[in-house]
């Protein structure tokens, strides 16, 4: 059975991000299954605080849902750091297979122990490097670039390991800093590079695909335990239905964004297979260094899953 509920769902991104479409689908699906009783109230662009703050609100039971990137949450669950590891997935197919499979379940189970119910993995997209100095074709090209990266030990080490200068900075200041050439580059998914207009101030985009951090669709465990079986089932089903929609939309948009960035005159280069492999090997030391903090078991399991999908 279903009770009248208002589910507050917050997002770090704005409503025009593909997550908007995902949430629309989720809302429609829930309304359908619950006969209109379960309503979803969306908050966008960190209106209810950043990802970490919103997630903490879920853990304390003051908010129902959040769609958050995994990186800000490693302080709560170190195992999530596995998604920050450089050059983790080679393509979307690998990512889907592993996240929707037993490894994704393994992480979801761990999330329950810290008071969070993970309903699905949505896509944030591969992160790629832009800069104003040179095309990055091999790992040595990172050397000396001043790059704004997310404040996260694995990311910082990844870029240092490549010889780049990692600079911490609030996202809102990145555009101005790139424009004034105070920093050379930044790294984000295509969609973000497009919507933040970074192509206006960056000459080169290198499709490095150096990181893939998924979105987690989280529900507060405290509040979850007060839901009926039907309600829980509806939430889980709808998160999956909307996951497929969100992934479809973001992949289309990602392609469109890349086309637009190219159209704006940014020089785009793909990595050739051999150089990609060299980068992956170069980044190996970052995996080894952080395996202990992330949890050796989780890293090993991830490695095994990757080998499996790559058919080794």
């Amino acid at each position, binding site marked *: 059975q279903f009770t009248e509920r208002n589910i507050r769902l917050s997002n770090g991104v704005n409503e025009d991000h593909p997550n908007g479409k995902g949430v629309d689908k989720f809302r429609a699906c829930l309304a359908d299954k619950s006969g209109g009783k379960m309503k979803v109230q969306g908050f966008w662009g960190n209106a209810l605080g950043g990802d970490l703050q919103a997630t903490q609100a879920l853990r304390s039971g003051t908010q129902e849902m959040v769609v958050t990137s995994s990186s800000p949450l490693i*302080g709560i669950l170190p195992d999530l750091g596995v998604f920050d590891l450089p050059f983790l997935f080679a393509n979307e197919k690998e990512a889907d297979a592993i996240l929707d499979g037993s490894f994704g379940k393994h992480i979801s189970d761990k999330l329950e122990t810290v008071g969070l119910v993970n309903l699905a993995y949505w896509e944030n997209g591969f992160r790629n490097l832009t800069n104003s100095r040179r095309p990055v074709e091999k790992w040595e090209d990172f050397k000396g670039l001043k790059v704004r990266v997310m*404040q996260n*030990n694995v990311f*910082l080490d990844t870029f240092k390991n490549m010889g780049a200068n990692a600079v911490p900075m609030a996202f809102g200041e990145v555009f101005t800093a790139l424009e004034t050439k105070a920093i050379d580059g930044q790294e984000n998914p295509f969609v973000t590079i497009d919507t933040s207009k970074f192509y206006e101030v960056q000459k080169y985009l290198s499709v490095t695909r150096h990181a893939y951090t998924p979105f987690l669709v989280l529900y507060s465990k405290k509040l979850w335990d007060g839901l009926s079986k039907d309600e829980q089932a509806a939430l889980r089903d709808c998160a999956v239905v909307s996951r497929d929609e969100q992934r479809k939309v973001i992949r289309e948009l990602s392609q469109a964004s890349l086309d637009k960035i190219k159209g704006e005159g940014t020089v785009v280069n793909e990595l050739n297979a051999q150089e990609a492999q060299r980068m992956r090997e170069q980044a190996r030391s970052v995996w080894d260094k952080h395996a202990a903090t992330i949890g050796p078991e989780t890293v090993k399991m991830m490695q095994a899953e990757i080998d499996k999908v790559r058919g080794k």
Partner: protein
Amino acid sequence: MVVMVFGNVVLRYLFDTGIDVSEELSRYFFVWLTFIGAVVVGREHAHLGVETLVSRLGDKGRKLCMVLSDLFIIACCAVFFWGTWQQAEINATNYAPITEISMLWIYGVGFFASLGLGLLAALRILRVVSGRMSEQELRAFAGDYSDDAAHALRERLE
């Protein structure tokens, strides 16, 4: 405190990107500075307020407003304290991304601030009730700071 924050960011300058912990650490010092400072400033009655209405009241009215507002402040502090208490566990199990210190160290300052500010309000009620409220304090409450150096803070800020 300022010296520490200051020194930290200056270090960041000298060593360029060398110290990743400095941003995080200076932020946390800053949080401590804010809330410890809030209690110190509270003791000097120098937090920004609106005295337009209170200044039109007589001594009795002012005392009444003072007690009422202090009761509300105590309520706010109680909520702040209780919230910090309830959050203690989820903060104790959340670690800062770079320095990896427990966030309880940062959030714990909420205990200090809520207790400190609540206590100040309670003591003031006590002073009113026991008739030991000074003329000067009552005038300051109504926005007349003519003999109060702490009020100069407002002139530095706005």
